[in-house]
């Protein structure tokens, strides 16, 4: 298991889902994939398939309609997995907190490992969030000493 985790850490696959974000954080997530920030140098690539993904990057808050989608995506991802919530919307609902159709941050529905602050979160911050999440992912699944 230990050596397997090493591989995942070297090449995590990312699934990106847009909750009810304003797009601001979304395009910054996409910007991370493109040449200037190039998250691929950490081995990460974007995938559209939750079954292939190790990390879930989620932007925006949850509402009536997407709550089941978020849950479903999370459940479809194989273990070990980690969730990075991007932007203040994903953390608390942010500027839209008082809207009638916003139920709050992503943390209400699925366990979140790393919160990336910012409105919009900057690509540097997103990349740091991903790196931190990877560390968590590794720690989470290394076999315990006493086991």
């Amino acid at each position, binding site marked *: 298991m230990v050596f397997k985790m090493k591989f995942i850490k070297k090449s995590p696959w990312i699934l*990106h*889902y*847009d*909750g*009810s*974000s*304003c*797009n*601001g*954080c*979304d*395009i*910054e997530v*996409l*910007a991370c994939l*493109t*040449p*200037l920030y190039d998250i691929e140098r950490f081995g990460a690539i974007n*995938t*559209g398939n*939750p079954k292939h993904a190790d990390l879930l990057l989620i932007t*925006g*808050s949850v*509402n*009536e*309609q*997407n709550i089941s*989608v978020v849950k479903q*995506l999370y459940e479809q991802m194989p273990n070990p997995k980690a969730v990075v919530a991007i932007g203040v919307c994903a953390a608390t609902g942010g*500027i*839209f907190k*008082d*809207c*009638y*159709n*916003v139920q709050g941050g992503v943390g209400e529905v699925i366990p979140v490992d790393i919160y990336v602050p910012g*409105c*919009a979160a*900057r*690509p540097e911050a997103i990349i740091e969030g991903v790196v931190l999440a990877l560390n968590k992912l590794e720690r989470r699944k290394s076999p315990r000493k006493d086991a």
Partner: protein
Amino acid sequence: MGKRTIVPFGPQHPVLPEPIHLDLALEDETVIEAIPSIGFVHRGLEKLVEKKDFQEYTYVAERICGICSFMHGMGYCMAVENIMSLTVPDRAEFLRTIWAELSRIHSHLLWLGLLADSIGFESLFMHCWRMREQILDLFDMTTGGRVIFSVCKIGGVRKDIDEEKLKRIVDVLNNIEDELRSLTSVFLEEQSIKGRLSGVGVLSQADAFGLGAVGPMARASGIVTDTRTLGYSAYPHVKFNIITAQEGDCFARTKVRIEEIFEAISIIRQCAALIPSDTLIAEPVKGLPKGEYFARLEQPRGEVIYYVKANGTKFLDRMRVRTPTFANLPALLQTLKGSELADVPVLVLTIDPCISCTER
């Protein structure tokens, strides 16, 4: 004739950066009908006018959509300014135009990238986004933000662009223009791209008119429409062409958007040359708004309408946005009918959908 099958498309789909769901009714490979279901991004932010005062609300308006963020703030401000009979200083109008056109360039480049991605041309996607980063750097330099600037406020703008930075903007744009030329030749002359785009998703002029398409979608079908000709902001002082095409297919829409980037560059150049050198960039806001107003402006995706109704208190009665993607959805459903399943992602993309502003 085959059996009818329903294929769900979205809400989470690789070509879609945003969630929208379509149920595609198929017969063999042909789409018979597309039934959209929306609401994944609905937040209900129009109602927020009752909780945030009219000045604070500018921040919310900017976050209707992160791609044309500046223009949303601008549209909202224009509506409130008109109700309050505030005259925006000339310099501020020019600055707004510059930022608005920069937003148009960044949005169109983003779209070109996504289009390339949707037809599987990954390196082209990367190139478009690489070029777009240069525009974002300009935003970063002039406003401090990359996607959301909060630089527009009621009565004017918050930040000035000094001579030196204006020069830098023009320099960067000159650079981009050259790069764009080579990109254009790929988009418009490459056989594989042509093959994927031309003749696909034809929207006739009559349909475009009848279904109320706006922006590049309408212009690519031969309708001459551009809200900028109404002469808001600094647009009366600059010359620009309205780009149209006749074919109405995906290729025409690509062509129109590419040409529009060149137009936007020329508008910014003219603005940089004509900008008045006074120091006033914002008129102070006195009193409270009372009355109603429709503001219209041209976003990268087409015409947006802002309706604001104020009752003389800090909180507005009503704020309503009619966004371009919303206006283009009926046209999209029309073009989807009879298309091939494999073309659906490209078709959905060519209206340049912005779901987050459609659903608000």
